[in-house]
């Protein structure tokens, strides 16, 4: 057995001739891989009606086989004799139909579904009731579902990203018609032979959940779905879970670990995924279109989109950041001492001081606000938990509102650090303690600052802490800027 080719996969020698030059041990291993055989039925519970039983109820169809069974019902493959086309018949599980008003609700919902026509949505042809069995006749998709593909393991990021836009388009379309899927999961995302994606079971969840029961599939259910409040953002969350699963091969844990921590993907993909997975619906993409744009841009260029969700791109470069911070530092050093000695002087000197102090103060205030706002913008692109509320807070700082002051500085420090941490950037972090100290000193200055001695005493540490904070903030903004322009690797 010398000088023989070796299987690159398992290291065993390859036999000469035979098995089409594929390693037999690997071939057998492939055959033993479980869960991917042609067994699409099964599952716990009662045995679904056989195709023959179903065929007896639907004389207009030639029922061929049972394609599978889900929580909502059983699906059969059938040929519609009159039109000579393949269809899928979904028979709703009888145990789910326990409400007297179900028939009415079913009728209403099914009509809505039948009106939907989109290339990425499985078309509903017909619906009805036959001897107490509610059924829906749908387009038959010759292909596999995403669950089948995921059993083969995780997917390449490009491929995972490619699946998102068509799903989003379909969701956009349906959401526009006021239809929420409520049960987006890999089992419901079908891929046909040409690799096209189609969403199945649109609205079935809401259709079956007629009596207000919770419907959906737990790992893919948005947190708010637990309380029964569902809107289109629940679909976005579910798609986020699917995307996470495609990228990592696992579903997100309760505390979501960024995909880049698990597999080799760009950190920018983290932010895109994590935003869809936000626990609070307000923090997610608000529309499927937003999610789609993000996925397309990622797939297209690997860069962040120029705009997203109406948040303006932070249009500045490292040079302008440095300039901004220099101006801030200078005006800070001018305005603070002037402010401290202001109560000690009077008359013409006071007017002269005021003429110097007020503009310096204004410039420092404006620049600081602008920088905070831009820092917030940069964080947005990285999916940090910065809400519009906090952004307003940053703007409120000149008004010396303790709550906003604290909220803005401590919040900004936390968000910035989390963002840099996630990106694995070995950049300087903002000090949370220093931010809090700054806030406390600021409030003290505002309250006791009018007393000449006390004001001056507070003013000195306030000046120093503020200056260190400015320096820290500058470094962090530069690091965030670098992250944004795709130089994360340099920061590691």
């Amino acid at each position, binding site marked *: *057995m010398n000088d023989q080719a070796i*299987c*690159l*996969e*398992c290291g*065993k020698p390859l*036999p*000469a*001739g*035979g*098995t*089409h030059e*594929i*390693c*037999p*041990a*690997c*071939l*057998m*291993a*492939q*055959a*033993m*891989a479980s869960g*991917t*055989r*042609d*067994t699409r*039925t099964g599952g716990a519970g009662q045995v679904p009606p056989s195709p023959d039983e179903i065929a007896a109820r639907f004389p207009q169809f030639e029922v061929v*086989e*049972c394609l599978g069974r889900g929580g909502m019902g059983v699906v059969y493959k059938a040929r519609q004799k009159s039109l000579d086309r393949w269809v899928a018949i979904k028979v709703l599980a009888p145990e789910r139909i326990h409400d007297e008003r179900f028939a009415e609700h079913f009728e209403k919902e099914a009509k809505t579904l039948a009106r939907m026509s989109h290339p990425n949505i499985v078309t509903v042809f017909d619906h009805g009731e036959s001897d107490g069995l509610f059924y829906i006749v749908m387009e038959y998709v010759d*292909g*596999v579902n995403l669950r*089948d*593909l995921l059993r*083969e*393991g*995780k*997917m*390449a990021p*490009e*491929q995972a990203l*490619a*699946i998102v836009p068509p799903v989003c388009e379909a969701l956009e379309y349906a959401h526009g018609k006021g239809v929420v899927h409520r049960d987006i999961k890999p089992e419901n995302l079908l*891929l*046909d*032979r*040409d*690799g*096209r*994606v189609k969403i199945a079971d649109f609205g079935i969840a809401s259709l079956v959940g007629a009596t207000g029961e919770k419907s959906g599939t737990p790992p893919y259910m948005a947190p708010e779905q637990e309380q029964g409040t569902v809107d289109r953002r629940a679909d976005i969350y579910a798609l986020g879970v699917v995307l996470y699963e495609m990228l990592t091969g696992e579903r997100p844990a309760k505390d979501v670990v960024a995909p880049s921590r698990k597999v080799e993907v760009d950190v920018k993909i983290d932010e895109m995924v994590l935003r869809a997975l936000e626990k609070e619906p307000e923090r997610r993409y608000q529309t499927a279109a937003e999610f789609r744009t993000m996925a397309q841009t990622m797939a297209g260029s690997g860069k962040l989109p120029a705009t997203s969700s109406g948040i303006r791109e932070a249009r500045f470069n490292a040079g302008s950041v440095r300039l901004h911070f220099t101006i801030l530092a200078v005006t800070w050093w001018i305005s603070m001492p002037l402010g401290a000695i202001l109560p000690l002087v009077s008359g013409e000197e006071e007017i002269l001081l005021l003429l110097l102090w007020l503009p310096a103060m204004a410039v420092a205030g404006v620049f600081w606000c602008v920088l905070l706002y831009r820092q917030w913008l940069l964080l947005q692109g990285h999916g940090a938990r910065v809400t519009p509320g906090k952004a307003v807070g940053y703007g409120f700082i000149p008004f010396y509102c303790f709550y906003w002051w604290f909220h803005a500085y401590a919040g900004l420090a936390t968000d910035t650090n989390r963002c840099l941490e996630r990106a694995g950037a070995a950049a300087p972090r903002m000090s949370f303690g220093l931010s809090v100290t700054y806030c406390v000193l600021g409030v003290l200055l505002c309250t006791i600052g009018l007393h000449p001695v006390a004001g001056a005493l507070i003013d000195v540490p306030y000046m120093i802490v503020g200056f260190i904070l400015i320096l820290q903030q500058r470094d962090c903004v530069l690091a965030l800027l670098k992250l944004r322009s795709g130089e994360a690797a340099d920061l590691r």
Partner: protein
Amino acid sequence: MSEDRSDLFLTTRWTLVGEAARTGDAGAKQALGSLFVTYWKPLYRYARRQGKSPEDAEDLVQGFFEHLLEGDGLRKVDRDRGRFRAFMLGSLKNYVASEWRREHRQKRGGFAVHLSLDWHDAETGLGLDAEEHRSPDRWFDKEWATALLDKVLDDLDRDEPGFERWKRFLGRGQGDLSYADVASVHGMSEGAARVAVHRLRKRYRQRVRDEIAGTLADPSMIDDEMRSLFEALTDDFT
């Protein structure tokens, strides 16, 4: 569902062989013949490892087949019919020990049933060094598994359009081969490639199971037999 049906059908193929012993039914003999066509190679190589010359090994296999069809060989099928693999090796050993010498003298070159096989093909890669002589039984199992996989791949090649294109995905785990590369070569999307591979894998797995089921009396033994074959394949004789 379809799996059960095909298991049933294929099991019958091996059960038919047992029938052949009692009834002498021609269809049953055909069933044995079809199994033999798939699995003669391990037998031949087993004989070669036992020190037989190519000519003698050829005669041995030829004679063995005829012995099974005409002689008393199949009577033992009922008693020992759990696995076709075990039955074949056991029968061959018995045949070698008791009858071959005599029959060979009588029938050299004049077998009533002629097996049309490419005997030369079975010589490819036959090492016959000391190591291979040491454990012919284990080599037999290994080559049996290889023959089985060969059969499945040949069938797929015949029945599945595009098999050549995708077959290399059968042997590997995920991640090593790029769907994108293959897809771009054939001008299709990566998603479509993935779907195609998935389908092929699914069919392949089913076929391996079917084929194994065809050599067993009891379909519930499939997983067990598959494990044995895998162990045989990964056995490096250390």
